[in-house]
């Protein structure tokens, strides 16, 4: 039976009560898009497997659950979050803790970090930088393809705002620790905007941790504007639990001579789908999309990437890797679109997965759409087992079979990790991946709260 009409019904109730309910104080800049977005959501619906981009991903496990609350934060909710300390040593960052995607001091103004980067809630941004928000908000998100994007546009109440004005450089990476914590099963939607103006640089690390065992579903939309000659790096580390669902849609819009990289490291999560959209909108821009996931039990991890080459002389790479064990399933859907005028495009894509059990499953779907005639594009996908020759080579030096397998899996994963631009973090993630591969990483292993 189709679970979706009931869920849509509950969301419609939420929508109808919005003005006295969740969207009571919402700024007009955001409200102006909501009505159209909600009807777009109703038209598109929650994606099912008839949708090309969700062909291998069944959302029922997450969307079919009956959540007790649509999360809309109150000040008292943030107490747990404020006690949290990230324990990564030598990681020199500006650290901020979010709760279920929301900034704790939502009603306070934006804060300025040394170097001149503004950070705070979307609500505060609408007050302090109305014309900037107006210029960028909802301009890059694509509301017409995937029903979950307009659902977010219609109903997200708040989120994180980051703004690097022209030629500002953050001296340290910004770390966002996003805690999932609640005493009830919740559905949360956060909406984020990142603006990196011409010549500015921003390096962003987002860590998603579930710190209480409730069911969660998060549907996150993040829009990123990268101006001329600007540089933006985002690394997501997702370490949640088997009852949590995480859907992210990240839209990175790049102007000429800019650089962007996205790195999604998924260590744990019941259902995770990361969609990363890169639009190369000006000449000589460069973009990289990386992903690594480790999945077991009944976890499902999907990566969707679209790289839009809309201007000539741009370069893009995609590298996605996964290790799947037990009954896990994974999907990779990578698209390269080269527009008619985007001559001299270089676009590369690679997806490699290792299957450790007879019951794990991986589906990959590379798609190339090329309308220019002078381009270099390639794609390759492999799904396989560990290399027997390499395994024997390690064992022939006295390393036991189990350790040898771990070393090979780690080596496989490191190929993605080595692209992380922050060294202390690279080492940390190497470690986390090793622990995860050894089965030693529980969802609470790196959490100070130790709720259980």
């Amino acid at each position, binding site marked *: 039976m189709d679970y979706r009409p009931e869920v849509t019904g509950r969301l419609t109730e939420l929508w109808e009560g919005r003005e006295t309910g969740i969207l009571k104080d919402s700024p007009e800049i955001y409200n102006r898009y909501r009505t159209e977005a909600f009807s777009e959501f109703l038209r598109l619906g929650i994606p099912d497997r008839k949708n090309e981009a969700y062909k291998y991903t069944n959302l029922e496990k997450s969307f079919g659950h009956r959540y007790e609350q649509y999360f809309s934060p109150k000040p008292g909710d943030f107490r747990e979050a404020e006690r949290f300390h990230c324990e990564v040593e030598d990681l020199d960052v500006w650290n901020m803790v979010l709760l279920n995607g929301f900034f704790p001091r939502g009603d306070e103004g934006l804060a300025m970090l040394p170097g001149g980067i503004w950070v705070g809630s979307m609500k505060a941004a609408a007050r302090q930088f109305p014309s900037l928000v107006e210029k960028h908000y909802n301009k890059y998100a694509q509301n017409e393809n995937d029903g979950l994007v307009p659902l977010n546009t219609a109903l997200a109440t708040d989120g994180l705002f980051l703004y690097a004005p022209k030629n500002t450089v953050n001296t340290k990476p910004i770390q966002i620790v996003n805690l999932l914590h609640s005493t009830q099963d919740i559905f949360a939607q956060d909406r984020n905007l990142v603006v990196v103006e011409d010549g500015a640089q921003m390096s962003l690390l987002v860590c998603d941790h579930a710190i209480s065992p409730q069911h969660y579903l998060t549907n996150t939309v993040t829009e990123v504007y990268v101006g001329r000659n600007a540089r933006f790096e985002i690394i997501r580390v997702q370490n949640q639990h088997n009852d949590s669902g995480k859907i992210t849609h990240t839209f990175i819009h790049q102007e000429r001579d800019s650089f962007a990289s996205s790195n999604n490291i998924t260590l744990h999560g019941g259902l995770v789908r990361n969609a990363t959209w890169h639009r190369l909108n000006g000449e000589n821009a460069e973009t990289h999309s990386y992903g690594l996931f480790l999945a077991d039990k009944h976890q499902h991890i999907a990566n969707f990437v679209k790289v839009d080459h809309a201007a000539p002389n741009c370069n893009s790479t995609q590298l996605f890797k996964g290790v799947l064990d037990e009954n896990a399933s994974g999907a990779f859907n990578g698209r390269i679109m080269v527009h008619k005028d985007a001559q001299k495009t270089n676009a590369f894509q690679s997806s490699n997965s290792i299957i450790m059990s007879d019951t794990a499953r991986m589906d990959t779907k590379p798609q190339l759409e090329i309308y220019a005639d002078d381009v270099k594009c390639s794609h390759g996908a492999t799904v396989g087992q560990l290399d027997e020759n390499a395994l*024997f080579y390690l064992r*022939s030096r006295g390393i*036991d079979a189990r350790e040898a397998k771990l070393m090979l899996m*780690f080596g496989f994963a490191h190929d993605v990790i080595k692209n992380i631009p922050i060294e202390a973090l690279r080492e940390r993630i190497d470690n986390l991946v090793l622990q995860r591969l050894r089965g030693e990483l529980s969802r609470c292993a790196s959490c100070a709260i130790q709720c259980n």
Partner: protein
Amino acid sequence: MQTEFLIQIKDLKASIDNKEILKGLNLEVKPGEIHAIMGPNGSGKSTLANVLTGREIATVTAGTVTFEGKNLLEMSPEERAREGIFLSFQYPIEIPGVSMVNFMKTAINEQRKHRGLEPLSASEFLRQMREKKELVEIDSALTNRSVNEGFSGGEKKKNEIFQMAMLEPRLALLDETDSGLDIDALRIVANGVNKIRRPDTSVIVITHYQRLLDYIVPDYVHVLYDGRIVRSGGPELALTLEERGYDWIKKEADVSEETWTTDQK
């Protein structure tokens, strides 16, 4: 039972995909001896290396292999390595993402654990790495990379000998370690083997060519043909093979085979 042999191979038969490759091979090696096994392509040289190191490509159907009094064929590849068997691969494998340092540290410490020794300290390990790198004249930059990744053919072979130097085996099997090497690389690799060899280290050199044996001088030379050792001799046998090729050996062996088969009938 005290045995004077380090390794004793008796009537060894092995098949790949039900095709018999080794057809009753006998070989005995004492501590400190160097044996060369020569033979034409397809005679079973690499299969012998596979069988001795426990690679599951070949199935042993008969015979025994005793290593220091223990049944070698019952052991896993890693157990054999820990007992002191080392194979220098004909085609060393590239392993992206696994660093040489981590690989060697893990291998050495697993072998030390097997002998009841504590893991090497970081400084002692690095000291040994440095020392052994000089012995085999391997570029320092290479050992900071992933295992064999992007190494040239010569560098890969040097890296095998470097690993041998680090692991100090009782028995080293050099499987065509000379193939594809220019004369300078050959000299470095061969001298490396001589330098790291202790008086009781035994070596089995598997090769097509006599060239390597100018540097690693064997005590015995055996000719492997059609899965059996058909002739054994001293170092001079290698020179004869170099001059006359293998055809005369093949003819002799085929004749005796025929005779043998006829006799059976």
